[in-house]
């Protein structure tokens, strides 16, 4: 880390999100989620479908619906709790301080407004610039995200662009005002791999150029491996393992993380190398109250696992939520 930062840029403390109207049965989608992002740092939030990744990011951005949702805990941005901010204050922060890129660019771009207007609008709203200056900036930004003939593209509507180009436009919009934090929720999941590689490259470059911190939300551990400093693994609404990238991949200690890595086919592993699936499938309910939610699928299960819920504890080089984690391998030997 360069420079002396005395506090994280974003510090999520004990975040919980429950859905359901008051009086009715509530469903917890996210619980006890804590994570820190330091200025300029790249942090990953990984987990399978339904594990609570998007709900976490929406809670941070203040974008959850305001009815039928109960949010607990703290979301500290530069030490101030975003959960106590008014909608107007949040709207001011979004775009200028914290920006977001979603999986489906079609839902975040307005289909009846040209790309140029959508991009310059952000610049005009947050920066002291004239219309002409904003236009010039917009052309430059589109060029920077690798869109050919940017001046022409500015006059086009979102549907006239391919999926990869739309995603690059969104990245350009998100980073237009040089926010301090970019939250990217599965930004390349809907794209083909060669387009994914283009978009990730653009994202990486721009984040580096602007010194922004990145919260990368994805189910793809491959994307994480090339991009993030720290990784948080989520299962059923809670973080189960959190550590730096090299440790996580070389020596996963939560049985879910280990299982995930052993079950993914790899491009560089020899043909016929066995895949070890995780048995069963993720449950949609969050049975954390009385047991470890991963217990039904876990090969390391001990008695405690079905009797009470494990807490997230700092153990040596990482945070772990597990009664019987995988062995702490000697990292020099774990290289494969």
């Amino acid at each position, binding site marked *: 880390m360069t420079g002396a930062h005395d506090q994280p840029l974003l510090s999520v403390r004990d975040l919980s999100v429950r859905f359901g109207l008051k009086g009715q049965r509530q469903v917890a989608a996210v619980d006890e989620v804590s994570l820190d992002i330091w200025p300029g740092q790249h942090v990953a939030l990984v987990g399978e479908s339904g594990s609570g990744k998007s709900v976490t990011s929406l809670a941070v951005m203040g974008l959850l619906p305001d009815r039928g949702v109960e949010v607990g805990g703290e979301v500290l941005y530069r030490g101030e709790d975003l959960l106590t901010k008014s909608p107007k204050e949040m709207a001011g922060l979004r775009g200028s301080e914290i920006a977001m890129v979603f999986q489906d660019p079609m839902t975040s771009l307005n289909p009846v407004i040209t790309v140029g207007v959508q991009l310059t609008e952000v610049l005009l709203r947050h920066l002291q610039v004239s219309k002409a200056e904003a236009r010039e900036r917009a052309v430059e930004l589109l060029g920077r995200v690798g869109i050919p003939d940017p001046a022409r593209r500015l006059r086009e509507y979102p549907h006239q662009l391919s999926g990869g*180009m739309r995603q690059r436009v969104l990245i350009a919009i998100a980073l237009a005002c040089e926010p301090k934090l970019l939250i990217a929720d599965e930004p390349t999941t809907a794209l083909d791999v*060669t387009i994914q590689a*283009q978009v990730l490259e653009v994202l990486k470059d721009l984040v580096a150029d602007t010194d922004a911190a990145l919260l990368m939300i994805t*189910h793809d551990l491959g994307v994480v*491996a*090339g991009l993030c400093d720290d990784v948080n693994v989520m299962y059923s609404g809670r973080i189960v393992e959190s550590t730096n990238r090299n440790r996580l991949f070389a020596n996963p200690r939560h049985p879910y993380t280990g299982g995930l890595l052993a079950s993914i*086919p790899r491009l560089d592993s020899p043909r016929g190398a066995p895949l070890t699936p995780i048995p069963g499938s993720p449950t949609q309910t969050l049975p954390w109250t009385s047991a470890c939610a991963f217990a039904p699928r876990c090969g390391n299960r001990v008695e405690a696992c079905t009797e009470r819920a494990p807490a997230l504890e700092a153990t040596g080089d990482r945070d772990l939520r597990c009664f019987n984690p995988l062995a702490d391998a000697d990292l020099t030997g774990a290289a494969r």
Partner: protein
Amino acid sequence: MTEPLVQVRGLKVHFPIRKGLILARQTGTVRAVDGVDLDIEAGRTLGLVGESGCGKSTLGRAMLRLAPVTEGSVVFDGTDVATLEREALRSMRQNMQMVFQDPLASLNPRQSVETILTEPLRAHGIAYDSSRVRELLELVGLPSAAAQKYPHEFSGGQRQRIGIARAIALEPRFVIADEPVSALDVSIQAQVLNLLEDLQQELGLTYLVIAHDLAVVRHVADDVAVMYLGGIVEQAASDDLYSTPMHPYTKALMSAVPVPDPRVEETRERIILQGDLPSPANPPSGCRFHSRCPFRQETRCDDERPELVEVRPGHTVACHWVEEINSGQIRPHELTPDTVVQLEGHS
């Protein structure tokens, strides 16, 4: 060498683009599959990879005559399926079955698992009893109690098992699996991939596995064919293809796949392609890949379509400059966005 079980030659599937409601005029053609040759040997698995819209599913469907064949032949065990008439085609289909990507969409929600699994048997007038259902369920690793349940009562991985059980109910010799795991969560993909392998061993099946995920194909396929915009650009034994990809597109595709290992990610060289996949309604002339190719040359690439040529035993590549590229004589050039011929964007 033995005759391949399945031999595809010059296969084309063209869809007309029509405009106008009453007098529908044909205003163009989508060349979804545009001259494909493939060989699949008995008992082996051919993996077919390529990006969205390149024609993989259409090719697979055409091989089973589920999509109209415009031109070419699909020879299965000596018989050309592409020209078979109704009755003969129907009985041929017993031997050739398909597993689909989205297990929920391909299973009738109102039918019990037993009905789903026995439907193909009834359709082909094959006698069965309940032990056949139990047997099929056991083969795909489901309890016999599953027979009385309905698709929505199962998880995604279990539903895909049901789809697989249905596909093998007629004891086919050849199964096409179109993106069999891409709708599944990563932690359960391996279950289904392992099941496909076990069934192959047990029943002696021949597979065509279609997937956009190169790592999945790496895991299951003996041979791999790479498709780009309606045509095969490279085919080889899996080990050859993954260790020495020779076509510029294959090289780029492979370098783009993220590997879940930071040490690999930090040291590998990535070939970033510029631009998007052109539309199959308006494919580039010459080599279909020339608009994005980092090795494109002044001559031949733009106006002459390269044929698949065997450059090493069992390794075929469709690129004019494959020798020069792989000996290092031709180096990739930096493509900037503006040098890319922007073809009609596809969406």
